[in-house]
């Protein structure tokens, strides 16, 4: 009896340890949110408060003269992400179609590892590629004197979101039941018609979550973008040749030497970024849950 009770107690203790480990993830999320929001919202309250409207609508970032405007950074982040999606999604989905439907087996054997490798390349390496190839190339064709530009950011982000979009779209396409395709082909549709009229619509929710994950990756990307964006202190980007300063690079550029209000403002930038990510995450959850219900 005693031994049994001892064993039961032991089992109970171990289970509690397992539970505590599982709670680490939850605690981390809560801690991250509390710390970032507390520090980031701090400058907008109290006696020496900075106007939140000036912060969110401002187009100049000059810590030296106590001016902190992030609107032009929001614009940069949104434009860069949108650009990368407009270019990256069609290329990614079509590549997925190639791998899942059209490619001969031998080509698939090569394409898969290629996409995996693309996914595994560290972002700093993408930055080097952007800095060494894309920026000099843009400098040649750009009407402005510099190659650091919104266009460079869009190109590099496009490449970086490709693996995400390809992998997820491919598995979504593969999950479409064979009978759908057979029925369409049997009715006399061509292979291409079947892909675009039957397979892709059936894989819609998977492709949609690929798109949303891609947005998350693009808007959160820091290091690669920092090297090629130019990071000006002011100005809403007015063409693809303009230098831009996305939210992420603003944080990474000044964090190491900032203090006081400037540092709090970097956390405030983080809060804005966090809000975007939350929207992305919630959208993603809704899509996947909807797909699950079906």
């Amino acid at each position, binding site marked *: 009896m005693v031994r049994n009770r001892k064993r039961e107690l032991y089992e109970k203790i171990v289970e509690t340890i397992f539970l505590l480990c599982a709670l680490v993830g939850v605690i981390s999320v809560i801690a991250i949110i509390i710390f*970032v929001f507390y520090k980031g919202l701090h400058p907008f309250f109290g006696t020496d408060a900075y106007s939140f409207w000036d912060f969110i609508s401002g187009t100049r970032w000059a810590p030296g003269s106590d001016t902190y405007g992030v609107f032009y950074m929001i614009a940069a982040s949104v434009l860069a992400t949108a650009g990368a999606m407009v270019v990256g999604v069609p290329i990614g989905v079509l590549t997925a179609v190639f791998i899942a439907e059209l490619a001969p087996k031998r080509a698939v054997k090569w394409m898969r590892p290629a996409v995996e490798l693309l996914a595994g390349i560290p972002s*700093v390496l993408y930055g080097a590629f952007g800095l060494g190839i894309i920026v000099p190339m843009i400098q040649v064709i750009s009407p402005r004197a510099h190659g650091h530009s919104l266009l460079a950011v869009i190109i590099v982000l496009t490449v970086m979101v490709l693996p995400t979009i390809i992998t997820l779209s491919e598995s979504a396409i593969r999950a479409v039941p064979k009978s759908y395709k057979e029925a369409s082909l049997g009715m006399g549709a061509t292979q291409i018609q079947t892909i675009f009229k039957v397979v892709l619509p059936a894989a819609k929710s998977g492709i949609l979550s690929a798109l949303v994950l891609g947005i998350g990756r693009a808007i959160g990307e820091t290091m690669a973008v920092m090297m090629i964006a130019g990071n000006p202190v002011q100005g809403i980007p007015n063409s693809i040749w303009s230098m831009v300063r996305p939210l992420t690079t603003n944080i*990474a550029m000044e964090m190491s030497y900032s203090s006081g209000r400037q540092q709090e403002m970097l956390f405030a930038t983080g809060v804005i970024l966090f809000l975007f990510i939350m929207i992305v995450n919630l959208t993603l959850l809704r899509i996947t849950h909807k797909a699950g219900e079906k």
Partner: protein
Amino acid sequence: MSRKGKDNIVKGAIYASAGFTVFVLIAIIGFVLVKGLPGISISFLTRNYENKTTYVTVTAVTNLHTEDLQSGYIDPLGITLKVNEDGKLEITGIDKDSPCKDALNLKGISYPVKKGDLVASVTPLNDTTMKMKVIRPGGGIVPMIVTTLYMILLSLIIAAPIGILSAIFLIEYAKPGKLRNIIHFAIENLAGIPSIIYGLFGSLFFVKLCQLKYSILAGALTLSIILLPTIITTTEETLKAIPKSYRESSLGLGATKLQTIRRVVLPNALSGILVAVILSVGRIVGESAALLLTAGTVAQIPKALFGNSASGATLTIKMYTLMKEENDLTTACAIGIVLLVIIIVLNFASKTVTKKLLSRKSV
């Protein structure tokens, strides 16, 4: 337009897209190779980053002065010198019984002079000993490799047990319901947070509040949170794939739940857990934004876990600072080649393990 013509245009677009993807990969790898290969050498992989100047005392009966040094064999010291490209005297050969091998630094600790060191000056101290200024040239990435290894070890020591135990809890213990949903919701959200936000959190919480300073421990703790979703999800998938009958037969034989997990579930999940670890290593090696804000950018081997001398740049961080602050694309791309090799090896390893896993399952 005919149906066939339309189809062909679309087909062309599909092939072009796939071609673009492959082309981009080749372009990136090609660029890094072309730019970086000139920077790769044995000394790049084996040397310290900074030059290191040391004064040593050598026991040798000689009356040698700096002016006497020249290219050729220096008999009393048993070394061969040669003027290198920069006009410095480099040791190109060293005798087996050379007294330089028993050199002591000013603290009296053994500091054997090596081939490749530069001799800046020599001065006789007394009849039997002389002082020598030796410069050990840097330009290598050893500190970054060591820091990266430390970072991998430390992060995995923290994150792997927590992640694996979490997965076991979620699959083996937790009943479907609120708690499990909350934990899953948290993990899904963690996976979506960009690393710069983790960096912000780490720099505030671990670096400042816990007073770890810019250190490998602060970096590793931040990384651990980043790794949790990967480790938990991958382990969960593996546990889910283990047939229920395994557990039932073990429980039916009278084993307790914990015994079942230890003797039946975990042994069957090992290769899946290995895949989780490999994926984590890839993530650690590639991570930069979070480490930039928590582990610092100094090219040195960390001498402590936390505190003032504990900061260190990983390969990725050094690659970044080389480009951004020192404008040295060649060395940066040389590090890039090292990173590429690591990533390719890791991809290959995870593939091999997964294949083994699948082939065993089909038996």
